């Protein structure tokens, strides 16, 4: 599988990884259009794990964990990064581990030069009521990714062998290209640099500095609280209106805001558990609604379900990403239960991330759109803009200092 040339850029790593899993029969999906803390919470992963049909998918998902912002001072922990997430129902249990090893070779690792470990790990995604157990994948002590046999999603036991696995894409790239840190991962091969400016490393760091400054010092606590309240109210309204996917999305969008609140030190234990409890309740309700909504719909015909979604969603942005916006809107959930970086969350392929501007392939487009104003008319659109709730201008000015 390994071709003669090995990837030397972030994009090369992404191509290899997605190509590998595509070759295993995984549908390669677009990312969902807003911030999630964990690829597993992409609605195409989360909801699909629950429904009765078969499913095998892989996608690169931009991840946002504001509390992981380290201002570029950490070699590989960042508030934003990319995760390659794979979900695979009805898997032959002994298969995925060997595929992980093969995929790493496919990316170009000479594993004989490294120390590859599979270390026991439980996964508990609090907000999504996801539980499972498996391994963290460690390369030379670096938590490169994870591989989990899922037990339950949205509190519902799965009852069939289901594996989810993920890679921190930039982490893989950093290790693969032997970059000094995550900011030094090249986007372009040296030969391609002619005409394109490099200087990326420092700029990416600056971006993380802004995120850090925003999350720790600048973010307006009242604004965040209000937004979370609004999102929760809207999620409830959507549930009442029989729109579980939209409700899920609104629930998801609370998570990064809560994470910023926590970074600001504004979230007490009690408030945190109350608010996370609310997210959990919306998510569980959405999951129930989702299952009801697909009853009678051919389980494996995804497009049907998309069409069945609320008409508002089939609006503008839909064509951009092939899958229906309904599901795109609902997305990730946060995986870090208690302390910052609990082993479970951590172990995932979470790290990586790149600061501003570092939007290669997947999320680049939606990232631009979010630069604009947060008020959006259409739910779907709003969702895609989700990131705009991080007012860029503010953080930029502060991060500067």
């Amino acid at each position, binding site marked *: 599988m390994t071709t003669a040339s090995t990837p030397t850029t972030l994009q090369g790593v992404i191509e290899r990884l997605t190509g590998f899993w595509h070759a295993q029969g995984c549908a390669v999906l677009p990312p969902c259009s807003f911030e999630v803390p964990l690829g597993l919470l992409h609605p195409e992963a989360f909801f699909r794990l629950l429904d009765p049909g078969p499913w095998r998918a892989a996608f690169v998902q931009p991840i946002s964990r504001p509390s992981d912002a*380290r201002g570029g*001072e*950490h*070699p*590989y*922990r960042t508030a934003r990064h990319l995760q390659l997430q794979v979900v695979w129902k009805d898997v032959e*249990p*002994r298969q995925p*581990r060997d595929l992980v*090893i093969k995929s790493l070779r496919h990316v170009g690792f*000479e*594993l*004989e*030069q*490294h*120390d*590859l*470990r*599979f*270390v*026991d790990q439980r996964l508990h995604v609090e907000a999504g009521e996801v539980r499972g*157990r*498996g*391994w963290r994948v*460690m*390369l*030379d*002590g*670096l*938590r490169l990714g994870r591989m989990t*046999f899922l037990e339950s999603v949205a509190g519902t036991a799965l009852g069939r*062998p289901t*594996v989810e696995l993920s890679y921190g894409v930039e982490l893989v790239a950093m*290790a693969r290209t*032997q970059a*000094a*840190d995550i900011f030094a991962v090249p986007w372009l091969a040296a030969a391609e640099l002619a005409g394109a400016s490099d200087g990326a490393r420092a700029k990416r760091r600056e971006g993380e500095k802004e995120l850090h400054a925003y999350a720790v010092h600048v973010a307006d606590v009242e604004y965040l609280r209000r937004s979370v309240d609004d999102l929760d109210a809207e999620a409830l309204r959507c549930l009442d209106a029989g729109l579980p996917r939209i409700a899920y999305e609104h629930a998801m969008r609370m998570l990064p805001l809560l994470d910023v609140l926590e970074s600001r*030190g504004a979230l*007490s*234990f*009690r*408030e945190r558990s109350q608010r996370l409890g609310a997210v959990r309740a919306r998510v569980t309700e959405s999951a129930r609604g989702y299952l009801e909504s697909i009853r009678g719909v051919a389980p494996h015909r995804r497009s049907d379900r998309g069409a069945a979604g609320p008409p508002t969603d089939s609006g503008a942005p839909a064509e951009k990403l092939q899958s229906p916006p309904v599901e795109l809107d609902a997305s990730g959930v946060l995986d870090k239960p*208690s*302390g*910052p*970086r*609990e*082993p479970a969350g951590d172990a995932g392929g979470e790290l990586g991330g790149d600061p501003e501007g570092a939007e290669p392939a997947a999320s680049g487009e939606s990232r631009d759109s979010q630069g604009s104003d947060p008020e959006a008319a259409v739910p779907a659109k709003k969702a895609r803009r989700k990131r705009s709730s991080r007012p860029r201008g503010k953080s930029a000015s502060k991060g500067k200092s």
Partner: protein
Amino acid sequence: MGDFLLEVRSQEIPATQLKPLIRSVTVRLFEELTSRGVPFEAMSTVATLRRIGVSVRGLAEGEPEREKLSLGPAVAEAFDDDGQPTPAVETFAEQVGVEVEGLEARPTERGEVLARVDIEPGRSMAEALQSLVPRLLKESAAKLDKVGSDVWPRPITGILALLDGDVVPFDFGGGTSGRESVGHPIFSPDSFEVEDWPHYRRQLDERGVVAGLEARRVILEERVAARAAALGGESAGAIAQLGRWAASCEIPGVVDGDLPPEAMALPFELLRTVLAERQEAAAVTRGGDVLPFFVAVMDRPDGAGEAAREGRRRAIAGDVLDAVFDYERDRQVPLVERARRLEQLTFHHRLGTYAEKSERLRELVALACDDLGWHETTAHALEAASLAKADLTTSAVGSFPALHGVIGGVMARSEGYVEPVWQAIYDQTLPTPGGAELPRGRAGQVLAVADRLGTLVGLFGLDGDAVDPEGRTQRGDPRGLRPLAAGLLRLIIDGGMHLDLDLLAARAVLLYGEHLDFDAESILRRLQSFLDRRLDHVLGAAGFGADEIEAAKAAGTRDLPDLVRRLEGLRELRGTAELRQLVSTARRLARMVDEAPEGEIDPELLVGGAESELFDALADATPRVDAATAEGRYAEALRALARLLPALDRFFIEVLVMDEDDAKRVHRLALLQTARRLGGRVARLAALEPDAHVTTDLEAAALHASRIPPWLASRSSKTD
């Protein structure tokens, strides 16, 4: 004679499950073979995170013949006086289809009976193993967590099962047994055929796989120490980690590198924990100083792999920086403020918040200090109790719960609290289960006691699944009551605390107020009986015999250090003729005066001779016993008691106690009652079993171990 070789390969099994698994497989195999009467010469095992292997050598050809019995009437009733078979026998013989002469006598629980005996040939070893092994494997893993498999901890990747070179065919967990094994998944993934155990071991050796758990531990210990020495120091805390590390690799490799400079800013306890928990690594220290290096374990050969070394350095730097980030943020909020935040942190969903717990702690430590007469400790203990739980709000403890207490102590030290206070916070979780270390100061002692007792009282006060009405925990110990109790008792005993636990527990019940479901009387009674049983356990583990414990407890002391001194006194005299005589005399006394009403000695009635001699001996011994008892010198008290023995012996021979005269009888009984009471001040000597084999902890362990093969105890992880 046959040699059986079994290897079950799987995906990576957690370090915590590996030992239970290999142990369970080996013990069950041993028991199955033994119970079937199948002899064998030796067993050995190997275990890595990806395989467990067992070799049985010198195995019999097959199972022995077995008698199958159809039991009939008792021999005693089978024949009449003329020696003729009774009708019952004839009927039985007919039922089982043989002549009466064909029946044989066999001993049973109800005496000898007549039986039809059929000899069943044993199965061949191959047949027996074929059915035995899959069942045995399944049972061995039954209690372990399973992921991706129904029958084995992790998905099975292959099975090797050979009896004298032939495959023992069976299916298990999706795998089919064969004659092949593999090496390391990265370095030697190709399969190879196996001939026998020595060949198997050689093949693994050639591939660098050190299959024995203990062998890997030894190698890692040597290499980690050597690497640390080369860096100019020693590996800090590595010893405690070696068992886990050995269970998590097949090729025991070691790598070292530089720590980032930021590591030096971390409290050493935190640095050490980060390295151990996140990275299977240890810091390097020299004297009390931390050197800027780490030594880490790998699952690959040493040397080469510069990528592995550089990668590890970067990964560790990242983990250290995360810890620094957390700790720096933690330090920005002082403990006092953190203690306020405990209002929002739930201690137990029925028992309120940690703030409430802290308040109860304050009350309990104050009461304990008062009861102990440690008045100069009270202020420190109160301050420590207020802050003790504050570190639960830190990220550092959130990431590493085992550092609760330590982080708070370190923060308190750097915030300028006096030594008794920060040490008390730091030491509050001592003693750790199995550890010997106690809190360093009195404030730490009372805090640690109050913490555990408060929690126990709370759990005993709740209706639910924790404790049944008898105070027994159900399903083992789901709420961890036993370690709590053991810690509490060891604090008091080893710490020499003359503390009234009942008083403290009663106060704790009051402090919980409305939280509890049961009334104080019920809680205290059940708690007391629970603690009493745990006390027996703790004392038994310390090597005291059950009879000694019973005897010492019967002296009625509620002061545990005193109880232990009594036991030590008894142990000092254990096996002596003196003690044996004391016991037999005490029993005789007990028999004689047990039923008698209490009387008084009437000096007027002393008739001289043996009676006066006993009176004088009592008068002589009493102050000696009292003095020795008061000072806790119980061996001496026992020796003083022994001085009564000649007088008592003579009294028994020469004096008629059960005199017809009431006054004389009461008076003489009173003399004996006095002697008995005197002895009772030390222990209930009649309860001792001086001739019985006194069970010591070592012997108890040996007894327990005898249930498993003796070679297993020492060689369970033997490599060859």
